[in-house]
């Protein structure tokens, strides 16, 4: 009966499709393959990865897990499973929690090549820094002309009427720079002279002053900030004349803008956070050799010195700096950051964030 | 021979109550009654599309209760004919052809019902009378042990009805099988049947 034949043919087709696909995508346990979890915006291109593979014979797959928090969350949830070998992008605002969760194993990297700044938050073999950058406020010099609107000298300036609804910050729970800046404010206001106010008061005042809070850096910078590249993008609102970003963001603007930008990094002592990003070897992975080869490659002179154009951050190695082209280095600022211990952050971040949630409601 | 013993069936109200009927081989019985008197229900119970609440259906002494409709060998021509709209005349009739038979039989029966050149016609392009004959041909080619007809001519004009009913009678008689013909028209009943049974 031809209907029986038809059924047989369908079944054979289905089985062959399934088996073909299962073969292609079956898990790969050989040591010549590294599975890396990183954040979305990690800038290592496919070409660089291919170069690495050609040199070393190790193939690499990178899973994009959102932002730094996503990387940590993924690492914790897959702890000990060996699903991922390396985690790239956990920063020093999360490192305390990561170390607490026991998700790393030691790397053999030689840390004498790193700058002191890179090792300032953590100097150990469980997390190797590969880049850093300070998170601070950037302002639009078109608005902050020094006459009608003076350059802020303290964060309290932002609670004044001329800044009403004109500063954009990011939600510390959903954004990595937002979280970094927030932690800086905790520290900044703990040094307050009168000791009468703390970060909660400032944030409450900012809420009353209509601070714009977005879930991600892109929305704040691209849509709200008047001094950035967003003014040429679709859906631009441009109501914020200052934004939380990186102190070298004006440099990136200049780099793309042929040495021209109106954006300036605001250098107020302690009102910035030195965000250091790490690469770590996850516990549960057996690929110690390949992992170390990759990490050494990432922090090698050849690759790491290019971090300012690969990942748009400062290189971690000693002597590394932002390139000078197109005013990139000139427009970038190295501020005096806040100073907070990673284990302090780990112990308190939950209650700090809760208080922030309440202050901003 | 078909034997219905004490068939009862109700939906919300009683439709059939202790109904008894016997139909001999080579006998055409007309079932006459107004709408809602249970005629169609009885046919559906006989061919197995529905189950009676109580009573038995016996065919040549065999109790049909456990036998599913596709195995009973009883054919039915529905009121709306139920011709498969996606198949043409030939394919519709072929559907009724038992598996080992020759496809020549299809042309034979088309001839028999007077539709010799209609094999490739689409169902949608048939007139009322032509559709009726295709439906009958399809049921007959399956060589049923018994045939049931549920007011198949009701949608036709009275002129055609009369002539068709005589043809139908001739074809059924030629097969020597028991038949039940449901209608609400007493004149057709008189023309078609050997015996009339009234339902109320």
């Amino acid at each position, binding site marked *: 009966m031809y*209907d029986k034949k*038809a059924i047989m043919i369908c079944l054979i087709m*289905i089985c062959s499709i399934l088996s073909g*696909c299962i073969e292609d*995508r079956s898990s790969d346990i050989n040591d010549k393959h590294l599975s890396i979890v990183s954040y979305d*915006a990690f800038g290592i291109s*496919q070409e660089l990865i291919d170069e690495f593979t050609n040199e070393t014979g190790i193939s690499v*797959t*990178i*899973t*994009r*897990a959102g*932002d730094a*928090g*996503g990387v940590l*969350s993924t690492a914790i*949830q*897959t702890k000990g499973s060996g*699903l991922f070998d390396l985690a790239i992008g956990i920063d020093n605002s999360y490192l305390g*929690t990561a170390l607490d969760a026991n998700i790393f194993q030691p790397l053999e990297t030689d840390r004498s090549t790193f700058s002191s700044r890179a090792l300032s938050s953590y100097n150990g073999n469980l997390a190797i820094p590969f880049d850093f950058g300070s998170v601070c406020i950037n302002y639009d010099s078109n608005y902050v002309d020094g006459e009608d609107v003076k350059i802020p000298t303290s964060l309290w300036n932002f609670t004044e009427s001329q800044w009403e609804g004109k500063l954009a910050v990011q*939600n510390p*729970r*959903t954004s990595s720079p937002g979280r970094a800046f927030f932690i800086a404010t905790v520290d900044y206001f703990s040094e307050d002279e009168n000791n009468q106010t703390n970060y909660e008061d400032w944030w409450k005042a900012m809420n009353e002053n209509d601070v714009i*809070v*977005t*879930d*991600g850096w*892109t*929305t704040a910078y*691209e*849509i709200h900030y008047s001094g950035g*590249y*967003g*003014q*040429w993008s*679709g*859906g*631009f*609102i*441009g109501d914020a004349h200052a934004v939380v970003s990186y102190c070298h963001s004006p440099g990136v603007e200049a780099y*793309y803008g*042929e040495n021209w930008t109106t954006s300036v990094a605001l250098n107020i002592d302690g009102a910035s956070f030195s965000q250091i990003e790490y690469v770590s070897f996850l516990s549960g992975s057996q690929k110690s050799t390949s992992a170390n080869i990759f990490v050494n490659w990432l922090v090698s002179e050849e690759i790491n010195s290019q971090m300012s154009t690969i990942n*748009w951050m400062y290189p971690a190695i000693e002597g590394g700096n932002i390139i000078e082209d197109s005013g990139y280095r000139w427009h970038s600022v190295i501020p005096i950051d806040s100073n907070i211990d990673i284990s302090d952050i780990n112990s308190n971040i*939950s209650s700090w964030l809760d208080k922030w949630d*309440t202050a901003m*409601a | 021979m078909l034997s219905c013993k004490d068939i009862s069936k109700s939906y919300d109200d009683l439709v059939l109550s202790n109904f008894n009927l016997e139909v001999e081989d080579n006998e055409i019985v007309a079932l006459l009654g107004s709408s809602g008197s249970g005629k169609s229900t009885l046919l559906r119970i006989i*061919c197995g*599309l529905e189950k009676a609440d109580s009573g038995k259906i016996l065919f040549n002494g065999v109790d049909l209760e456990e036998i599913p*409709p596709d195995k009973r060998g009883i*054919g*039915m021509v*529905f009121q*709306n004919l*139920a011709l*498969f709209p*996606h198949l043409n005349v030939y394919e519709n009739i072929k559907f*009724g052809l*038992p598996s080992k038979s020759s496809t020549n039989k299809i042309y034979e029966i088309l001839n028999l019902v007077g539709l010799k050149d209609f094999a490739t016609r689409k169902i949608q392009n048939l007139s009322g009378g032509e559709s009726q004959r295709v439906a009958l041909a*399809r*049921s007959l080619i399956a060589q049923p042990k018994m045939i049931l007809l549920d007011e198949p001519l009701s949608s036709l004009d009275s002129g055609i009805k009369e002539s068709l009913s005589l043809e139908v009678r001739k074809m059924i008689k030629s097969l020597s099988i028991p038949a039940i013909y449901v209608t609400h028209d007493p004149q057709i009943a008189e023309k078609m049947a050997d015996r009339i049974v009234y339902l109320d």
Partner: protein
Amino acid sequence: MKARFLLIISWVILVLWPLLLAWNQLDSVSERSIFDTISGFNEKFQTKNALSYTFLVAIVSTIFTLFIGLPLAWNLGRYNWKYHNLLRSIFTVPFVMPTILVAMGFLSLLDWASILSGNNTSERARFYTLIFAHAWFNLALLIRFCEPLLSTIDSSYEEACRLLPSGNTQFRRFRNFWIPIMWPNIAASSALVFVFSFTSFALVKFITPSRRNLEVVMANQSEWAGLPVPSLSRAPSEIVLASSTVQLITILLALLISSWLQSKSSGHHLSSLKHRRKSVSFKSIRGLYLIIMIVFIISPMASLVTSSFMIRENTSMVFSLQGWESAFGGSHSPTNAYESLISSIFYALMTIMLSLPIGFFLADTIFNLEKTNPKFATILDVFVMLPLALSAVMVGLGVLLGLLRTEPEIARSWWIPLYGHLMLTTPFVVRVLLPAMRNLNPHLEEAAALLGASYIRRLLFIRLSLLKPSIIVSSSLVFAISLGEFGASWVVLRFTEYTTLPVMIGDLLSRPGYDPILRPAANAAGTILLLITLTLFISVERFRPIGSGGEF
């Protein structure tokens, strides 16, 4: 019948089990009760105004969709137009468009608006854009539900009405004839428009990124929710638990109402082949209205396509192919558009292979139950629609928390995204096949049985053959939805090695856009997705049986 029961139970387990696991996980980390969390929504930043914004968007979108959709359905249905089928296709294709593309299309329209007007946009303008986007997307529902009845209603009813005192003016006919007939269809479709606007994810995330609805809130918290590290996951878990509860209850209610209303619809009884419609040309007022609506439908898509050929150079936009080169050269994402596309197509095909048979048998079961036990049939119907009630993000979270976080090894499985796609497409298969089954002449299968055909033979040669047009339509619907699926995939795939084209586009859009090439690259990838979806849909439309009961 036993096999049927087994199928229903399996489906319910398939849908509920990861959710229950997820629920359990969330609950174990949470401290406050759901009620406390909900009442405290406005006291915490993460959820402030989320409830009111979600309802606001849903209600305004529904009203606006009715406002522009009803006249459209009326004009399409009551008059004869040249290229009628093409018109119908144009107005219903938005529904299968990937939401992320819709967002990109409207954003690029906003772009043009500010270039032409010389002004920047504002939060308010973005809000209006969101409402327009929802209406654009959901018009199809109104058309699908109302137009078939309007166009196939037997003319003799209206003609009789005209000659009677209650119907001798247009107004009276509306009040006494049309509204009583149409209101179940209108209300049922409005309930669905409400549901889709309520659970809108990509559109809200990208068009009004400064405001959060419940879906966005849940997606935001998905990073930490359910994780066994209470200091990080307590607040997020509470929020997800509370938000999903509110969402589930609201949507279940809306779906129940919609289901009940659909069963009241008298569509099939009033339709016939005897309908005469007046022919109208495009040069009339009605024609002008239709043309404006066509422009409305086409413009976001046209805008998206044109933007893929433009790139920002200093302060102006110039024509360039760089976006296309980049999208397929893959220098900006780990996979290039080609790989993601193959991946998406693979998942879509697999989804069809699974959801068609499952959907068919579910529809068949409901259909058979309607005759013997209608109440149970309605309950089963709602159960089948349950994944839609859960919204894409919730399904994704269910997979994430229920499967991935309890059994991380599963993350290696290529079929993980399939689960979400299956959940979200099978309800649509049922929604297409069920009315088609209802419209089948029941005697056909009976006749086949009496001719000796076995169950399999009846199934293959009668049932499936007659349902072929609906099966083709539902396949294309499944393919399109799977291809464009964003919400569940966004939540789930970020933790796996696999990606689909919409997720890849979302990634590109989320990156810092200093590099001018990112936007056109995303638009180029989006254009490919758009073209495939369009081609698929239009080529299949001719299989759709006319007046098929108007569901999808």
